[in-house]
């Protein structure tokens, strides 16, 4: 996996990583406070689940499942290792790109109290509007189900 592109001060910039294939899977950890009663066949999640971060480079954090599995790590255990976010949904990268979003690689170094996350990525292009978040809710599939 090539490293991500950086700006002049060494920060990851939004990008669509060429090594992340359309057939790859990315996973979004789900906080228990985002669950809601399912109606109209929806997944039972608020669109609040799919916001970008307020910190640069302002993408929606994800974990790249292919990278986790390449290391022989049990992804479900890795993703839900703390009590606040016991669930996870998955996206196919091709589906995200079909929505006009980009999927990048952003490995995170250890920064106490946070451990390193070498499998971390981001999805860019969601913005503040409800439309893209609702599309994400529609295409999300449970990976670790409530």
């Amino acid at each position, binding site marked *: 996996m090539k490293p991500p592109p950086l700006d002049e001060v060494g920060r990851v910039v939004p990008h669509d990583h060429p090594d992340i294939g359309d057939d790859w899977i990315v996973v979004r*950890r*789900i*906080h228990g*406070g*985002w669950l*809601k009663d399912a*109606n109209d066949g929806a997944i039972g999640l*608020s*669109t*609040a*689940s799919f*916001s*970008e*971060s*307020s*910190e640069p480079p302002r993408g*929606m*954090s994800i974990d790249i499942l292919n990278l986790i599995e390449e290391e022989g790590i049990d992804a479900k255990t890795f*993703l839900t290792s*703390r009590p*606040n*976010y016991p669930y996870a949904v998955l996206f196919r990268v091709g589906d995200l790109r079909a929505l006009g979003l980009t999927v990048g690689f952003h490995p*995170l170094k250890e*920064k106490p*109290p*946070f451990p390193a996350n070498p499998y*971390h990525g981001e999805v860019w292009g969601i913005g*503040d*509007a*409800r*439309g893209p978040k609702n599309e994400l809710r529609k295409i999300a599939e449970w990976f670790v189900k409530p």
Partner: protein
Amino acid sequence: MHSERPGTGNVFYIIQDSVASTTSASNRIFERQIRNKFNELCALPSGWDGYRSGPVPFGTANFAFALTERIATIADAIPNIFPTSAGEIQAEWEIDGGVVELVFYGPLRASVYVEYEGQSEERELGSDFTFVEGWISDLKAKRTLDEAAAA
């Protein structure tokens, strides 16, 4: 009022009991429930979303609190309230088959999404929430007419 959370160095704030006091018992219940939820959001631990997000900023919660309580009173319903990874607050109502979602991005910055009978609309809002209040009032008036027609 603010407190230090032991061991983290984080400061979190408690919304004062005196904020947006209302008169009726049901309104006081709404107010208390919403305040409690907002206090929870302001005290979320770092990394609460599984990544590296922090708690909802007090300024966002303070702006959202009075408006959420007011809309809840008009709608006569407590919303589902959610934090986002960007430090926002999202309040969602499902009223008489319609959907209202308010997102508070920060002080004096919000948007609303409404959906009813296949129609939907999304707007940016500042401090003027008359559109939301009017929409909910219209929805309730329509329900009253429907109920009268069915009687």
